[in-house]
């Protein structure tokens, strides 16, 4: 039976590839033909450049019928060169870029070619092999006006494959063959002009013809993958998505390793090797068309094609149009449907034969049923549905690990060795994988297999060496007399080597040999054999050997070091004999599991406190609202009077919050003592309550002032005189001692209490006299910084570590470094009056800032009240709160926008009023410091309202308003510690979340201000620390949670990460993305992002304002009636209701806008990123302050996160709310996450948001500010120290301790 494809005579034309290309150029000259990292070339441009190549070739006398070698790296030039050769009428002979030059020379000689089109770098190698290199870069760019046309019978290309004699064989494909093929296959594939086709195959592989020339036929765009992408399945998937590619031709192995095909792909064409059923099941029915193709090079790329569908087993389908397929027996008689035999191909795809191999051509290209046919050597049958099944090779050519191997070549080599009679080689499973196994009949009794193997190694390529050689008395044969290869494939193999080896000396050596015989089948195993040099063993094989040996209880303590120390087998066997008894493994750190009842009762007590905490917050927040609304509404009320009263109430409420917080802490918590307490116990509860009460006062107003020291003293800390304490968090203030003149920077975590292993550990922290702790530093319990010592920024001082006096320590974990250049002696201490007036000045400054930034609320009030009084009358109506809330919310949206604009304007105005910041060294007692503090307070106060501006398109504008020089298209997420006037951000720079940028030095009574510059396209990672005076060069990257290197260490294009920072050799790059989605967005995208981010900024504020209004509206009557009991209850209920509503709102927004988070890549200028960021901002500005912050350290917080999608085990303890892509986080039972620690499930890299999974194992403990980056996991019962960074893709094994950025094993204590 002959199976025919559709008969379409119109596809058989008298044409050549050049005709097809020129026709497409004529049809669509300006359409994009090629795209790569350098940009795009239209068809017209490709033609112009290819004509230049053709002209260059013609100048060398090249024309139709000749063959030109093509040996270049991947890229546009290679494709242009191929087109150029086609235009010249010659045939190309392609070589992979990695081909050994000797093989190139052999093929060129065989094809009688002398010219090789190549690159400068390869020219010498070409010349050395006797060929003439034509360097592509030297080719003319335009044509010479001459048009030479190849005849359709001329060769279009020649491809070489492995030959059975050891010499490669060339297959010449004519213009007619290939032109017909691309037309025929595209009848089925239907690639169109609007398709974007991935080009990933090496030109030496004929599937590249399918990629390139069908694309040119259709007028589609070819996207040329860079070399580093093609072998990396993930990079291919990312490229498909980023470049919106619609067509992928690929080998099944590549696709099997890809995570998933992006939705842009509409057509997947598999070929080059057999497609497994499992892959077909995974790919078929997924919204794109999948084809499986089959065809030997000799029949022009592809002969048959099957569409893969779910539930249908894989076949190679039916013949392409005008092709025919038959199945024949060894006598070349066609077989009927259903019978198995050799697949033969008929039709216009058949090559004329092998170059210069008439005999071989005659053997493979034969006449069957009166037609010319090609014997493929593949075994197959035509099934009942008329599709062809392919079962593999019938002849001795095999493909093993990508190499096409003629087994005959091995057989010949074997047979030529002295002492070998007859030989045969087959591929069969051996030692766990498919291997070449040779069988020989010895002609001499003295045959030594080791010598035979050594001789073969000189003769054959490594991949052709048999993994096992077995000696048989005779080879099994078929009746035809041929060796029965099937029988050899099934025959049981002898495991023991035939070669002479002395018998094992003892039981240990026997045990060793038994395992080695399996790992190194067929190898001589004797005591003098070296595991590494003789057996070619390596570390993995050593590990395998040890693993197997340890299954035997006698060798339970053997390790790989034994194999390394005792390389010879005899010595190793002796070492095995002398092994001692097993020693116990490293004990797991103890974890104290709290009983459920303790957690339950602690949770109940915490829950009982919540209404009280909420009430305090609500009162502080809404007191001015009440004052304002009590004094407005009547006709004779004075608006100014009401505003003044509200402002006065606000200042009083703020001022009272300090003594109230202190008083409540003293009354309810008392003094905590150093010790180790059970989690969820009474002391834990007191500590938790204390932490919540610490959050009552508006401490940001007094940070960096003498009032901060006073506040800490009142909380129980021992604070010396003239200390400068910025916004530090102190876990247990009564156990903190700060010496005279010490300086504590911004966002310093003094975590003298933390949870680990089910225990609350409380200890002291002592900062010596004149010591300095720089910003972003973390100190754990029982640590001290000696007098005059310094802990540098972004450093971690772990439990029980002490910095001796005068030393400087830096890094995570902190280690001694060179002491900094000393500053001059501290400036003189001001007198009593000066100090008193200074204290007063800071108080007034704080009050003024607080008041000024409350003022913008009033226009909001007035606007809402005006609309309400004029049209809605909500205040006077009897509507229920759920009816008025939506109206207030809508009203509050424009009002919130107004509030934002006024606040931003006010901040800019105030900045303009203040003296400019100068660089230099200033006394902390002086005027410059005061103004610097005043401006920081303004910035902090404005950010209470304007926080949402960060990580939006408005951030740059906001910073410009404040005096920062911000380059074009710079992106700023939350930048901390900014001194705006002294900061410069370069074009397209990127500041990630929580980066500390331009933090000034404050120590020894001095403040040093310097200018900070971030170069063009530079990147500051999340939570990175950049002190002022830093200058980043261009295209510089500072990694997550890293500190900046010194200026003189940095150079453009570098990547540094860690604390202390280290230079990374190269940075991980994300496959090139469409610039329109990363750096060069269209105006439409800019507008869309601006709108979405505008809403994202305004909505939380509007929500808060609406809640404020509704609460005042609902509770005002209690105030007017002076029913204070009812008022308290109503305000508490309103607060709890607000918390519930805010969380529900954020939760709904998350599920509606983003749904379930999954690992993915998303360029920055896409809707998903904007929505995801919107959800994050809503979470941080609504859900966290309204509810989740209260729930930190309670059993309720995990429940809230579960609703957001986090997969949480039982009894987890979370003292952090820093989670973003919730569904990507898995936290095991009993895991503990301390303050500001947690998973970082996304990063922006090269302006692409990359989301991945994070898994934190059961009972793992994350120290303060420990971060686990995406695609990383923390093993069970692992401990991560403070400021530890688990890098992407890492995992920390169970029961281990890690510390530092990047994480390293913690020394055993």
């Amino acid at each position, binding site marked *: 039976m002959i199976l025919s494809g559709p008969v379409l005579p119109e596809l058989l034309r008298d044409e050549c590839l050049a005709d097809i290309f020129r026709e497409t150029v004529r049809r669509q000259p300006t359409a994009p033909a090629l795209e790569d990292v350098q940009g795009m070339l239209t068809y017209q441009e490709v033609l112009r450049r290819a004509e230049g190549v053709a002209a260059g070739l013609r100048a060398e006398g090249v024309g139709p019928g000749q063959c030109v070698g093509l040996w270049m790296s991947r890229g546009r030039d290679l494709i242009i060169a191929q087109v150029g050769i086609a235009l010249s009428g010659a045939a190309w002979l392609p070589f992979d870029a990695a081909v050994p030059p000797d093989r190139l020379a052999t093929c060129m000689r065989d094809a009688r070619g002398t010219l090789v089109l190549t690159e400068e770098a390869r020219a010498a190698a070409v010349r050395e092999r006797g060929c003439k290199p034509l360097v592509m870069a030297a080719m003319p760019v335009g044509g010479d006006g001459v048009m030479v046309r190849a005849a359709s019978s001329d060769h279009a290309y020649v491809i070489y494959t492995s030959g059975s004699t050891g010499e490669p064989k060339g297959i010449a494909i004519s213009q007619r063959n290939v032109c017909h093929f691309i037309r025929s296959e595209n009848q089925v594939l239907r690639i169109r002009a609007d398709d974007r086709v991935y080009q990933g195959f090496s030109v030496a592989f004929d599937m590249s013809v399918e990629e390139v020339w069908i694309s040119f036929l259709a007028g589609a765009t070819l996207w040329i993958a860079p070399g580093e992408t093609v072998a990396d399945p993930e990079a291919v998937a990312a490229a498909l998505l980023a470049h919106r590619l619609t067509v992928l031709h690929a080998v099944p192995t590549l696709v099997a390793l890809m995570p998933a095909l992006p939705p842009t792909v509409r057509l997947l064409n598999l070929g080059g090797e057999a497609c497994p059923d499992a892959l077909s099941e995974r790919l078929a029915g997924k919204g794109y068309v999948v084809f499986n193709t089959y065809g030997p090079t000799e029949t022009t790329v592809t002969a048959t094609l099957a569409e893969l569908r779910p539930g249908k087993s894989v076949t190679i389908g039916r013949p392409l149009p005008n092709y025919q397929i038959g199945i024949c027996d060894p006598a070349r008689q066609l077989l009927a449907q259903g019978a198995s035999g050799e697949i033969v191909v008929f039709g216009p795809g058949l090559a004329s034969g092998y170059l210069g191999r008439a005999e071989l051509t005659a053997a493979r290209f034969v006449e069957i049923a009166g037609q010319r046919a090609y014997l493929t050597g593949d075994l197959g049958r035509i099934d009942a549905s008329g599709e062809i099944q392919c079962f593999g090779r019938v002849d001795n050519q095999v493909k093993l690990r990508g190499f096409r191997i003629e087994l005959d070549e091995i057989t010949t080599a074997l047979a030529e060795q002295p002492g070998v009679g007859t030989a045969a080689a087959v591929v069969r499973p051996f030692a766990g994988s498919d291997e070449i196994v040779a069988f020989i009949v010895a002609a001499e009794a003295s045959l030594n297999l080791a010598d035979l193997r050594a001789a073969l*190694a000189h003769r054959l390529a490594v991949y052709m060496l048999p993994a096992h050689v077995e000696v048989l008395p005779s080879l099994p044969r078929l009746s035809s007399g041929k060796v029965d290869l099937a029988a050899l494939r099934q025959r049981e193999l002898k495991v023991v080597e035939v070669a002479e080896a002395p018998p094992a000396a003892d039981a240990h050596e026997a045990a060793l040999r038994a395992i080695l015989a399996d790992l190194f089948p067929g190898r001589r195993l004797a005591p003098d054999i070296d595991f590494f040099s003789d057996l070619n063993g390596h570390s993995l094989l050593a590990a395998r050997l040890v693993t197997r040996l340890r299954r035997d209880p006698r060798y339970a303590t053997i390790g790989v070091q034994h194999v390394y120390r005792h390389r010879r087998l005899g010595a190793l066997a002796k070492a095995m004999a002398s092994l001692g008894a097993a020693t116990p493994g490293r004990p797991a750190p103890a974890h104290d599991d709290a009983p459920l009842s303790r957690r339950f009762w602690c949770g109940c007590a915490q829950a009982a406190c919540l209404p009280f905490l909420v009430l305090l917050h609500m009162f502080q927040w809404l007191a001015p609202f009440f004052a304002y609304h009590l004094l407005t509404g009547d006709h004779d009320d004075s608006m100014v009077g009401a505003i003044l009263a509200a402002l006065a109430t606000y200042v009083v409420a703020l001022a009272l919050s300090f003594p109230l917080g202190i008083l409540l802490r003293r009354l309810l918590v008392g003094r905590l003592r150093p010790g180790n307490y059970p989690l969820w116990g009474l002391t834990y509860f007191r500590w938790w309550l204390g932490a919540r009460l610490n959050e009552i006062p508006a401490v940001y107003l007094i940070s960096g002032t003498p009032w901060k020291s006073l506040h800490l003293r009142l909380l129980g800390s021992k604070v010396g005189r003239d200390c400068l304490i910025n916004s530090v968090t102190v876990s247990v203030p009564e156990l903190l001692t700060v010496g005279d003149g010490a300086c504590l920077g911004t966002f310093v975590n003094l975590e003298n209490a933390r949870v680990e292993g089910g225990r609350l550990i409380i200890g002291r922290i002592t900062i010596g006299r004149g010591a300095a702790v720089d910003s972003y530093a973390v100190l754990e319990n029982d640590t001290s910084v000696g007098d005059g010592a310094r802990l540098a920024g972004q450093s971690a001082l772990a439990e029980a570590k002490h910095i001796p006096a005068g030393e400087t320590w830096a890094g995570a974990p902190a280690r001694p470094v060179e002491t900094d250049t000393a500053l001059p002696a501290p400036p003189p201490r001001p007198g009593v009056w000066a100090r008193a007036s200074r204290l007063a000045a800071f108080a007034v400054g704080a009050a003024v800032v607080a008041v000024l930034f409350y003022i913008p609320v009033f226009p909001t009030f007035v606007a809402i009240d005006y609309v309400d009084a004029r049209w809605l009358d909500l205040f006077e109506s009897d509507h229920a709160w759920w009816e008025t809330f939506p109206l207030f919310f809508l009203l509050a949206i424009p009002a919130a926008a107004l509030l934002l604009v006024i606040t931003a304007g006010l901040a800019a105005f105030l900045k303009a009023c203040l003296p400019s910041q100068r660089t230099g060294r200033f006394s902390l007692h002086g005027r410059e410091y005061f103004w610097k503090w005043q401006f920081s307070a303004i910035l902090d106060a404005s950010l209470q309202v304007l926080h949402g501006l960060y990580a939006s398109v408005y951030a740059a504008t906001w910073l410009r308003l404040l005096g920062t020089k911000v380059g074009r298209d710079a992106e700023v997420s939350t930048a901390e510690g900014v001194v705006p006037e002294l900061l410069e951000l370069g074009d397209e720079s990127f500041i990630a979340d929580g980066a500390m940028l331009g933090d000034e030095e404050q120590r020894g009574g001095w403040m040093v201000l310097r200018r900070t510059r971030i170069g063009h396209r530079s990147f500051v990672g999340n939570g990175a620390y950049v002190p002022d005076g830093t200058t980043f060069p261009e295209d510089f990257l500072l990694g997550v949670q890293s500190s900046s290197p010194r200026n003189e260490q940095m150079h453009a294009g570098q990547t540094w990460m860690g604390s202390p920072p280290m230079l990374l050799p190269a940075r991980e790059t994300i496959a090139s993305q469409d610039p329109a989605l990363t750096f060069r967005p269209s105006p439409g995208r800019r507008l869309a992002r601006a709108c979405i981010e505008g809403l994202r900024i305004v909505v939380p504020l509007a929500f808060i304002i609406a809640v404020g209004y509704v609460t005042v509206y609902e509770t005002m009557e209690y105030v007017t009636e002076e029913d204070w009991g009812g008022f308290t209850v109503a305000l508490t209920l309103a607060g709890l209701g607000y918390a519930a509503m805010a969380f529900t709102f954020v939760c709904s927004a998350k599920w509606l806008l983003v749904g379930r988070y999954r690992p993915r890549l998303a360029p920055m200028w896409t809707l998903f990123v904007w929505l995801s960021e919107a959800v994050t901002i809503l979470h941080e500005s609504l859900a966290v302050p309204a509810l989740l912050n209260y729930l930190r350290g309670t059993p309720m917080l995990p429940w809230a996160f579960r609703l957001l999608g986090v997969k949480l085990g039982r009894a987890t303890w979370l003292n952090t709310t820093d989670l973003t892509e919730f569904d990507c986080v898995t936290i095991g039972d009993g895991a503990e996450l301390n303050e500001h620690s947690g998973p970082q499930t996304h990063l922006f890299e090269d302006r692409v948001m990359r989301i991945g999974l994070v898994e934190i194992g059961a009972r793992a403990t994350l120290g303060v500010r420990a971060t686990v980056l995406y695609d990383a996991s923390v093993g069970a019962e692992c401990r991560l120290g403070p400021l530890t960074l688990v890098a992407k893709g890492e995992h920390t094994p169970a029961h281990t301790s890690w510390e530092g950025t990047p994480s390293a094993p913690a020394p055993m204590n």
Partner: protein
Amino acid sequence: MKVYDLAEVALLGAPQAADLYLIRLPDLGRGSAARATLRRALLKLVRGWYGESVEILETGAAPTLTGCPLKFSISYDGTDGWVALGAQAKLGCDAVLAQDFPEMLDVARKYLGPPVAERIEQSRLRAETFAHAWAKHEATLKALGWGLAEAQAVPAMLCHYHRQTQAIVAVVAE
């Protein structure tokens, strides 16, 4: 990561501070002949940049280059030889064939840790996952100059991968 052949690297010049070359020597095989070939080729390459005084010092552990500021690390996958070459302080390279073998999970549990073993066990492509993890682990050990040991925690170091048919090559450099 980008893979070079010797000729390309020779033209590119000696690696500077942050450069890292992964060089493939095709069809090299394994064993002493392969080692000798690779060392000869490497020496020729580096002498081309730094002169004839460059030598490869066999220290008993990993060989090092003398007479130039470069470090190198070698691995063989049975077919190709691989050389990572750079000026980094720590450099390690390892090539592993992605092949299944019976005690894979045991080996992974002991040397790579239970979480990785679990990941390998759950992987659709066990041999691939194992090969990546092993190559990275081994490359990290080479970079640190540590020997292989069980339950050994290694620091997280930046790793680059390359795939060549069935071989997974990992390069760790800092």
